């Protein structure tokens, strides 16, 4: 009998989301499983509605990219109640302040994710090697949208790595953006004006880093730019051209495939354990290790 | 009768509106160069519709128009303008956000907005009309009479050969009217232009026009040289029946009955900064007060101040001895009704039907449980108003936006006829109303007074004031400068007073007092 899986990303306007969907579809095609991908356009309500619609269509399993970690609990409950396996991808289910990343919400079949704390941590390690040793280094952070939980995780991981490396640093500025390159540009421009002695800028995504690179270039500044949540085509180009020092390899496509795998296991084998945590390794990407990150999304 | 070929001829022009109203049923019209052609008719006869058709604003549903012997088919007002037809429309369309100067030259061509020639031409125009508005004032800030004058300048500015004027004098006071007459004469006699002139004032028509066409129900019922007619014939042709002139039967009038006791209305030092000097006044039950004055003399301000519609006004207004709170809601509740001068801007909700407009100020009267208006009763009221004021509308469900000017005006009056209004404030109530209905309305006012209601009426037609009022106040520059008993004054005196040349009149009680109260 033919199986159908559903997937509800956050918004297919974002390449990252598109890649998860692509990876999911690709893996499903190989396995001969039909897929339904519904786009909630970044709205929690629409995500809930899409899940309702999938349940109405009686799919055999549902994956989703939680727009809101806490709200996601009720979605998982609902799907679980309907007796379908459910897998969350990329973003945690359950309050990130109280639940550890590697301890998924118990009703989930699996949680497939980039470890964002680790993503920040890898950037931090990279940064630690770049900071001046003889004085307190000044760092500025280009944050994502303050409403997203990853913003805090990225920053925490980044600081943890610097602290572990014993770096002598001060975060002199941290400003929110809406994850877009244009805001990245303005924020960096303002950083560079307010602090002409910055040593390093840490951007929480490649997108803002692209804009930031333009600002650095225009100001003729020597500040080092690194990012996390990278591996995108744009980031790849920027690192190759020397506009950005490095980023961290995240792999949405792989996530999509892993999510499919987890769903398939849960749907075909009732003995599959619940609440598995599935993740992958995240190498640094710098000019030297450009090809260590296989996806260019 | 000299034989000149008409500059414009209309043959069996007809118009049926989208809502099924037949406004014109085949009208012929010849307009001759150098002549003033009067177009008359009762409210809703189709005058404005005809004018909109010959100026290109509407498309006719049938018939032909020829211009200088050539059949034309305007598809836009621009086409008509370009050929030399300039129109002053009834509901004066100016651009409120542009200056007077720019409004006057709105349709002119050329590349520059602030060309100095236009200022020069503006001065010339003003000189021609002998009226000087502030060229830099915003049109939106003007009163309705001033707007009317600006639109006359606008039409003159185009230098057209045919100038069409749809009730240019309806909202003007005597002085400005004289200016318009002079202009019209100058245009036709000296500059040899053709003029199509619409008016409800028969004296005006008699004095000014060379020929007249009378419309009734969308058909031309009379076409004649003015010299062969008199006012009675005209009135008969317009209304379709003999009408009796409302005489200035002041003697026959029973004076205000209850002059003793508490006055119905008392004003104590009512004033409004920059607009109205302190006024004190006492009006009895059943008394009709006329307010005379020129354009911008503050008559409307006085009415608005009494009604509580002017937020800046200070001073006390007492109705039957009770001080009123200063809000329109309180005034209406206490039994005051206001007919404002700008019917579309202030009097009516254009997208409401006749019946919903009518019942707006007195919904309780047609509501069940004092809460739920009952459309059936409201429609009945609409029917009644249509009958009472002979409003030309097929049913009360017609939107007031679709009514002719005079009929819309009647609706603003009818709004106050169905509740217990003790004090009527009427600001130019007969503006744009035809001769038949005007008499009816003036009679209605007398009848109301007879029933013990009090009326304050503002009118630029002093004759009208003399016909209905018991007492007349004259205003100038925001001040009440004189008060006359109707028996003791004449139109001539009022004119002089309003124009500022009158004999030193007795001061109104308290207009000399300080603003204190």
């Amino acid at each position: 009998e033919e199986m159908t899986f559903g997937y509800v990303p956050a918004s297919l306007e974002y390449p990252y989301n598109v890649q998860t969907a692509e990876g999911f579809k690709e893996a499903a095609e190989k396995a001969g499983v039909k897929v339904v991908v519904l786009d909630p356009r970044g709205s929690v309500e629409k995500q809930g509605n899409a899940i309702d619609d999938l349940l109405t269509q009686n799919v055999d399993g549902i994956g989703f990219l939680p727009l809101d970690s806490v709200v996601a609990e009720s979605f998982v409950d609902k799907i679980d109640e309907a007796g379908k396996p459910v897998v969350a991808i990329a973003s945690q289910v359950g309050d990130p302040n109280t639940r550890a990343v590697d301890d998924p919400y118990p009703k989930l079949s699996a949680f497939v994710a980039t470890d964002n704390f680790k993503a920040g941590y890898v950037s931090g390690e990279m940064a630690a090697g770049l900071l001046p040793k003889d004085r307190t280094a000044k760092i500025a952070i280009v944050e994502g949208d303050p409403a997203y939980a990853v913003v805090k995780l990225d920053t925490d991981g980044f600081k943890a790595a610097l602290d572990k490396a014993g770096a002598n640093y001060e975060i002199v500025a941290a400003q929110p953006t809406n994850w877009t390159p244009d805001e990245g540009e303005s924020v960096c421009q303002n950083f560079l004006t307010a602090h002409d002695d910055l040593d390093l800028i840490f951007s929480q995504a490649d997108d803002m880093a692209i804009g930031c690179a333009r600002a650095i270039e225009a100001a003729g500044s020597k500040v080092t730019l690194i990012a996390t949540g990278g591996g995108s085509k744009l980031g790849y180009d920027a690192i190759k051209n020397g506009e950005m020092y490095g980023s961290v390899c995240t792999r949405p496509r792989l996530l999509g495939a892993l999510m499919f795998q987890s769903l398939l296991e849960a749907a075909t084998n009732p003995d599959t354990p619940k609440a598995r945590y599935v993740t992958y390794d995240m190498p640094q990407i710098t000019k030297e290790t450009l090809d260590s990150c296989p996806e260019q999304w | 009768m000299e034989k000149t070929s008409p500059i414009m001829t209309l043959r069996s022009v007809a118009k049926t509106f989208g809502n099924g109203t037949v406004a014109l049923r085949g009208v012929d019209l010849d307009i001759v160069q150098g002549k003033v052609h009067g177009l008359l008719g009762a409210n809703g006869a189709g005058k404005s519709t005809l004018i909109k058709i010959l100026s290109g604003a509407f498309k006719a549903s049938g018939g032909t128009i020829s211009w200088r012997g050539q059949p034309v088919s305007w598809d836009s007002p621009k086409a008509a303008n370009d050929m030399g037809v300039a129109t002053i429309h009834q509901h004066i369309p100016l651009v409120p956000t542009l200056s007077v100067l720019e409004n006057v030259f709105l349709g002119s061509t050329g590349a520059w907005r602030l060309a100095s020639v236009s200022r020069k031409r503006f001065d010339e125009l003003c000189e021609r009309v002998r009226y000087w508005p502030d060229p830099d004032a915003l049109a939106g800030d003007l009163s309705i009479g001033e707007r009317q004058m600006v639109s006359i300048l606008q039409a003159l500015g185009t230098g057209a050969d045919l100038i069409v004027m749809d009730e240019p004098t309806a909202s003007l006071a005597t002085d400005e009217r004289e200016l318009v007459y002079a202009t019209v004469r100058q245009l036709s006699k000296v500059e040899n232009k053709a003029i199509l002139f619409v008016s409800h004032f028969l004296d005006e028509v008699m004095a000014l026009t060379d020929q007249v066409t009378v419309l009734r129900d969308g058909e031309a019922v009379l076409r004649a040289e003015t010299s062969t007619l008199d006012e009675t014939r005209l009135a008969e042709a317009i209304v379709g029946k003999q009408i009796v002139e409302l005489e200035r039967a002041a003697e026959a009038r029973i004076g205000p009955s209850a002059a003793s006791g508490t006055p119905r209305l008392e004003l104590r030092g009512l004033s409004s900064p920059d607009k109205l000097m302190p006024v004190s006044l006492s009006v009895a039950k059943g008394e009709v007060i006329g307010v005379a004055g020129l354009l911008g003399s503050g008559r409307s301000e006085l009415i608005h101040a009494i009604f509580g519609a002017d937020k800046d006004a200070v001073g006390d207004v007492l109705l039957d001895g009770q001080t009123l709170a200063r809000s329109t809601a309180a005034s209406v509740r206490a039994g005051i009704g206001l007919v404002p001068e700008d019917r579309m801007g202030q009097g009516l909700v254009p997208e409401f039907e006749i019946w919903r407009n009518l019942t707006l100020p007195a919904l309780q009267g047609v509501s069940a449980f004092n809460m739920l208006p009952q459309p059936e009763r409201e429609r009945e009221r609409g029917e009644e108003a249509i009958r009472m004021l002979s409003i030309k509308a097929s049913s009360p469900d017609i939107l007031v936006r679709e009514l002719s000017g005079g009929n819309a005006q009647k609706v603003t009056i009818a709004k106050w006829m169905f509740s217990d209004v003790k004090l009527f404030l009427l600001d130019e109530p007969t503006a744009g109303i035809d001769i038949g209905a005007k008499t009816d309305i003036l009679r209605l006012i007398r009848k109301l007074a007879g029933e013990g209601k009090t009326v304050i009426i503002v009118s630029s037609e002093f004759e009208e004031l003399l016909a209905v009022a018991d007492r007349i106040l004259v205003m100038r520059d925001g001040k009440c400068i004189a008060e006359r008993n109707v028996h003791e004054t004449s139109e001539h005196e009022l004119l002089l007073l309003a124009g500022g040349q009158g004999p030193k009149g007795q001061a109104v009680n308290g207009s000399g007092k300080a603003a204190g109260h």
Partner: protein
Amino acid sequence: MGVYYALLLLIFVLTMITTYLGQENYLSIQNLTNVIYQSSLTSIMAVAMTVILITGNFDLSVASVAALAAAVLVGNADAMGFWPAVALAMTVAMALGLLNGSIVQFVGINAFIVTLGTMTAVRGLVLIYTDGRSLSVKDPGVIAQMKAFESGKNDVFLLVVAAGIVCLALGIGSVIKSRSSGKSLRPAAVGTVIGGVILLLLALASGGELVVRTPVVYMGIFTAVVWFVLSFTMVGRRIYAVGGNSEAARLSGINVLRYKLMAFVLCSGAAGFAGVLFASRLRSINPAGLTGAELTVIAAAILGGTSLFGGAGSVIKTLAGALLLFSLTNGFNILNLGANWQGLIEGIVVVVAAAIYTVGNQGRAKGH
């Protein structure tokens, strides 16, 4: 009437396509109740938005206000109990409406810019209040109350049958009356008959049990009340007059200020209630929750033919507008239409629906 045609047309097209593709039937009771449920919060806000649009104002801040109400509820329910927290949330929301209205009416600033400002400011309050984190309810008692308040199911079979019969009766009565009095058929009468038939068919199709979720009931009640007030009471008449020509209304003795303020308070109150429902549904709130919902709300009202310049609008049509928008998204989901094409199609459908409305209306009143 255009919006009804547009809605029926859309549903018809979706039904045809799903049937043709052999998919789950679009017209299933399950799916229809889903659509109505999905649209309920937006509909509640859109109904109130219609009122504010009728008075000639505008409110961009609804979504932010709803989010703040949700945050206040979630943030306080554990400590003070469900109902007191609801009361607090509603108070906050209505106070914000009063604030909006007061700034618009007393300072005289355009409502668009005022509510654009408060939209940003209130969203800022949400961020401050939640400190950028998602809040959630912990207390099991409160959770139970929230479930009872929001997630209950209600059999409205009898209600729908009754409403259908009433509509049918009223409609037929009105048709007969206009026939006998020789007047032309009023489209509203025909509409009422069709509405009645549809309701009865729905009841028939459901086979005696028509279960809807509680928010749908709230929406129904709220809409019915507002519709009644607007159509049949003096207050409603005055609301239309205030928007149609506020100067004429003022000079007719209507307290324009009061009605305009009231509309703001109603709109924010409805937003607050939607926020309360939202919070009860999800039992948590994230600082970005409901972002952008104001545009859907306004779009629903305008699709329903509400004028942006005041004086005209109908809440029933607004409801149809909201259903139209949600049927569309739901249709996309049922059809599994590629995400890329959704935006394009949605945009086109919105314009076409408005066109049906406008062209349908042009027979009645010719504009230039």
